[in-house]
């Protein structure tokens, strides 16, 4: 940051401050228009008509002190923070004018001045972006949301779950009023080995020739895959059982080919 100690003899330029509370040095009466000492400094700095980076902090300090002095001579109440700033600037001024004391660790006048310049620049930057922000298109002014809002209905639904099994178990529980073990109730699709054996035994002794197992399923057991499976399995198991006891013969032409049986009674 460049701190120039350039002396400007310019007084406040009224055109720079057309809308500012301080329009010329004759009218330095109103401190109310300033948003604190930094704001006052920033306003004063503009009289130097320079880039904030190149501002003369020394000159600015003098201007500030002069301003506050004038206000006090006009018996305008000066808020404490303005006076604190004035005291600090007086100190800064002395640090800038006196040669640095090599024996202290204290920051140099230039460092202090640089920080103040930074603060001013930052405040100015914030003002600039604030203006940019407010100049943006704004909702409800430049662009609009939908005029009619449709409320989203919030529905909390409780789904009760109960299966047929739950139902039947419950009924069985009531009816037996006993403990009972887990069970399988749905035996509709189960064709038992007993049933198959019963049916096959009826054939023994009759000469019918080779019968394909798949064509020998009982009536009503070919309606669904699970029923076909159950009937086929049991019928097959029954043929094995009867072959073992010598009542039937079994044959299969090739792997996965149809399994056929015939009653041994044919030969008898």
């Amino acid at each position: 940051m460049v701190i120039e100690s350039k002396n400007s003899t310019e007084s406040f330029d009224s055109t720079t401050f057309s809308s500012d509370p301080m329009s010329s040095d004759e009218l330095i009466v109103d401190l109310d228009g300033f948003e604190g000492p930094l704001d006052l400094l920033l306003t004063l700095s503009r009289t130097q008509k320079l880039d904030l980076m190149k501002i003369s902090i020394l000159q600015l300090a003098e201007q500030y002190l002069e301003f506050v002095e004038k206000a006090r001579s006009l018996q305008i109440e000066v808020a404490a923070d303005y006076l604190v700033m004035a005291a600090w600037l007086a100190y800064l001024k002395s640090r800038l004018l006196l040669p640095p004391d090599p024996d202290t660790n204290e920051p140099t006048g230039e460092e202090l001045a640089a920080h103040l310049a930074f603060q001013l620049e930052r405040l100015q930057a914030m003002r600039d972006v604030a203006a940019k922000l407010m100049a943006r298109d704004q909702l409800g002014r430049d662009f609009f949301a939908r005029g009619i809002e449709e409320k989203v209905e919030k529905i909390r639904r409780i789904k009760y779950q109960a299966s047929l099994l739950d139902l039947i178990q419950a009924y069985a529980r009531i009816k037996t009023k006993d403990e009972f073990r887990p069970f399988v109730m749905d035996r509709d699709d189960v064709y038992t080995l007993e049933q198959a054996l019963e049916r096959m035994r009826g054939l023994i002794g009759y000469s019918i020739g080779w019968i394909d197992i798949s064509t020998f399923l009982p009536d009503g057991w070919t309606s669904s895959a699970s029923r076909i499976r159950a009937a086929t399995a049991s019928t097959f198991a029954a043929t094995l059982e009867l072959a073992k006891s010598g009542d039937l013969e079994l044959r299969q032409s090739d792997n996965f080919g149809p399994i056929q049986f015939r009653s041994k009674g044919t030969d008898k």
Partner: protein
Amino acid sequence: MIEEEKLTESLFEAPKIDQQERMVEAILFASSDPVTVKEIIGRLPHGCEPEQALKNLKEKYKSRGINLVKVGDCWALRTASDLSFLMQKETVEVRKLSRAAVETLAIIAYHQPVTRAEIEEIRGVSVSRGTIDLLMDLDWIKIGRRRMSPGRPVTFTITQNFLDHFGLESARDLPGLKELKSAGLLESPPPPGSPASEEFMEGDDQQSELFNEEKTI
């Protein structure tokens, strides 16, 4: 992208139809009420005749999630009616029916039409009002004819919805007690090692495996 020019120009001569469409669209969108054609004309730049714009927009929005609809003399944008289900935020909580409710339901299913007193007699416990209400709410039971007995108590029967839910053709399809028995349902488990039971036990095990998969109701 809309060039500044086009819009400035539009203040003097009627804007092109696609510009008019944009304008009408924006007006309809932002307005808190349906808008009359007259009002639209009043708000558009001079020389606009929005009827064509409205017609075009209606066509453009036809297959979209928002539709342009005429409401009396007014026009409004509305969410497409087939999407109204999106406007509901449904949270479904699945709860298991209480034991009392399941038992009550089972008794009604097996004994319908059945009175409350009869349900209580079968269960051996009183039936709470809440249980009946819940089953009614679920549309699984309904009130049947009054019993022609002293006090003329109401009876409960199951509903078509019950049958649909439990995948039954009719209440007669409910397994009977005999079937329950043959399935080992109504009996205490036979003592282990009892000779007659082994074969069936084995069979049952296999079946339960077999049917677990397929049995979702």
